């Protein structure tokens, strides 16, 4: 199949009916797989891995902190892609998917901030520091809140999708900044990446595999929630359309 044909078949999922039919078939498997990965990964990490020689048992927080931080950033980047599709191709499903992803990303950001603060208190001697990564993460969280507030504040859905898409473009700077803040400024309390394609930078092997399982669980949970919540947004949009038709007919 030619590349253009493949792309055209991809756009067919922008049809709300097709999107709902496909995602509803996939959702039971996604829920089960994400639940299994999270349960296995967290039990493995919590019960079966040793303490770190410097961090003690607080190293177990890595299984929540790293995957949630990863999803906080990548959630926003997913919203960026959906927003660009909306701005360029005007597919409603993409705008609704971005809207559906925002509360998930915001929750992931809260988990990353809370677990980081709880870990930081005994390790750094403080709950919070105005460190580049922590600060850019807090700003990313504020962008999530602003994005959700903007969707709720505007009555006309297409205008709301336009304005939130522009906000998403601006916020992407902070999503990328929070990922690379440690490298850009090379200062502050936060250490570098725990995981990298460069094996030298990774955490010790004994923590590595359960961490990968937890990351897989968070990624699958994110996908399952985005699919489910997008379906809800599609139905809510249909309700508004039917009510408008009913009012016009009355």
């Amino acid at each position, binding site marked *: 199949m030619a590349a253009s044909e493949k792309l055209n078949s991809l756009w067919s999922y922008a049809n709300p009916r097709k999107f709902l039919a496909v995602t509803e078939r996939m959702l039971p498997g996604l829920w089960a797989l994400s639940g299994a990965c999270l349960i296995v990964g967290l039990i493995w990490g*919590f019960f079966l891995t040793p303490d770190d020689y410097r961090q*003690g048992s607080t190293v177990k927080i890595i299984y929540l902190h790293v995957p949630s931080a990863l999803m906080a950033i990548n959630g926003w980047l997913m919203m960026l892609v959906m927003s660009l599709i909306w701005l360029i191709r005007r597919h409603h499903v993409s705008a609704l998917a971005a809207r559906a992803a925002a*509360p998930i990303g915001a*929750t992931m950001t*809260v988990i990353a901030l809370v677990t980081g603060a709880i*870990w930081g208190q005994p390790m750094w001697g403080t709950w919070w520091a105005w460190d580049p990564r922590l600060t850019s993460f807090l700003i990313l969280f504020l962008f999530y809140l602003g994005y959700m507030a903007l969707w709720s504040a505007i009555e006309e859905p297409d205008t709301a999708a336009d304005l939130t898409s522009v906000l998403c473009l601006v916020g992407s700077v902070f999503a990328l900044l929070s990922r690379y803040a440690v490298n850009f400024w090379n200062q502050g309390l936060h250490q570098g990446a725990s995981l990298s394609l460069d094996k030298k930078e990774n955490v010790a092997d004994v923590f590595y595999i359960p961490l990968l399982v937890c990351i897989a669980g968070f990624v699958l*949970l994110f996908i399952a929630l985005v699919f489910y919540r997008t379906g809800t947004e599609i139905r809510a949009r249909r*309700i508004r359309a039917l009510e408008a038709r*009913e009012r016009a007919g009355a």
Partner: protein
Amino acid sequence: MMPDLGKYADTVLSAYGASILLLIGLVAISLWRGRRVRAEMDALEKRMRRDG
């Protein structure tokens, strides 16, 4: 069996407790709203079919 978390037991348990609570809350709210909207749409479609 519960692992020995030493002097950081409160730290580790509170991080797990808060995170699991937030994740369960997110899933529960998503499912609750999803079911409510689906029921509302079904009722509306049924009413519109009945009223022509």
